[in-house]
């Protein structure tokens, strides 16, 4: 495209006019207004995971990839298989994030189990604290999100996350992570991973809903979050979490 000096001045003039007319950033980017029916103040999202129900089928990983267009070889959620032998370092595998499940293990002589992982939606999240531009944040309803239009791709947050839940999108060159299917939960649906978990091992929960089964779950079970010593105020609770899990 050839731009003459005259064209440049014209464009500049239009931009100045727009700015003086008070065009907001939204009008330029074209953001949709938040839904009327959904009030962020009424929710505080998290997840509960029952390790004893996870069969390592990888349905959650496939569902997440499909729903969120996660690029090949990257994962917003994945499943790990732990094989813990007494007095030894635990052996952990997660072939391709378990997107095709696991090759069967025949080692009946060791303690073994599956652990689904995802963003822990920390309330005091280290990734948010290090972002230099305000591109990643905890939403008013407790979901850690990334504003793609604001992210510089500096990768600070990737280093800061103690759980390894973030990656740099190879095409967008901005940081990508689990959004707890924010586009679904704000429409009254559950997350893609929870929708597709065949055993109900993972369940989306709303801590602000007094009728949510999470309250009974937390009262009746021994639960733990991952890496509690990091003081991240994680909101993904694991039932009967083994000490070997990192």
């Amino acid at each position: 495209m050839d731009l003459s000096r005259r064209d440049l001045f014209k464009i500049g003039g239009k931009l100045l006019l727009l700015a003086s007319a008070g065009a907001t950033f939204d009008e330029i980017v074209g953001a949709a207004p938040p839904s009327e029916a959904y009030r962020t103040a009424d929710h505080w999202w998290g997840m509960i995971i029952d390790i004893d129900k996870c069969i390592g089928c990888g349905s959650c990983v496939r569902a997440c990839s499909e729903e969120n267009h996660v690029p090949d070889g990257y994962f917003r959620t994945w499943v790990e298989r732990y094989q813990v032998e007494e007095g030894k370092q635990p052996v952990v595998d997660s072939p391709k994030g378990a997107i095709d499940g696991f090759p069967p293990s025949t080692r009946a002589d060791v303690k073994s189990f599956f652990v689904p992982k995802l963003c822990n939606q920390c309330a005091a999240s280290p990734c948010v604290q290090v972002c230099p531009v305000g591109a990643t944040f905890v939403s008013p309803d407790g979901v850690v999100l990334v504003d793609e239009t604001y992210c510089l791709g500096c990768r600070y947050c990737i280093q800061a996350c103690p759980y390894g839940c973030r990656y740099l999108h190879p095409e967008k060159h901005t940081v990508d992570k689990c959004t707890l299917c924010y586009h679904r939960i704000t429409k009254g649906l559950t997350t893609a991973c929870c929708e597709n978990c065949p055993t109900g091992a993972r369940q989306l929960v709303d801590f602000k809903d007094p009728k949510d089964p999470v309250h009974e779950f937390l009262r009746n079970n021994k639960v733990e979050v991952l890496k509690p010593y990091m003081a991240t105020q994680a909101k993904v609770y694991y039932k009967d979490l083994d000490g070997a899990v990192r």
Partner: protein
Amino acid sequence: MSRLFKTAGHLIRPALVLLAGLGLFLVIRAVIVPKDFGKYGHYRGASLGMISARPISYAGQDQCVLCHDDEAKVHSTGKHAGVRCEACHGALAKHADDPGANKPKLPDVANLCRRCHEKDAAKPKGFPQVDTVAHSQGILCNTCHQPHNPHL
């Protein structure tokens, strides 16, 4: 007195340049920082709306049941009642929006059943598992088992 002014000029001129620079910074900042930045916190408020406006791929079982009530009835009484439709049939929001134009594919039975039910020492003990090769020698599971309402 006039001598003092003469000397002060060295200070006043850079001070004016500094003020002009500061003014320019404030003007540029006002133009490029979105108005809703800081509305809810240290981020752009409108990004919440942008993220929640993304399209969905999985319609959810409630949508499937609206049309496929006969399958849903069979499914709801069996061992697979807790397994939702799209866990096996795949993402079908497009099909739910326009059933005629977007026909779902039949599931890949050879891999589908195996992923959940192949014998693995790491699986919960009470979960039904088989060594598929020894069990059926490659015969597809749905030759004998009815996936919507399996009985063992």
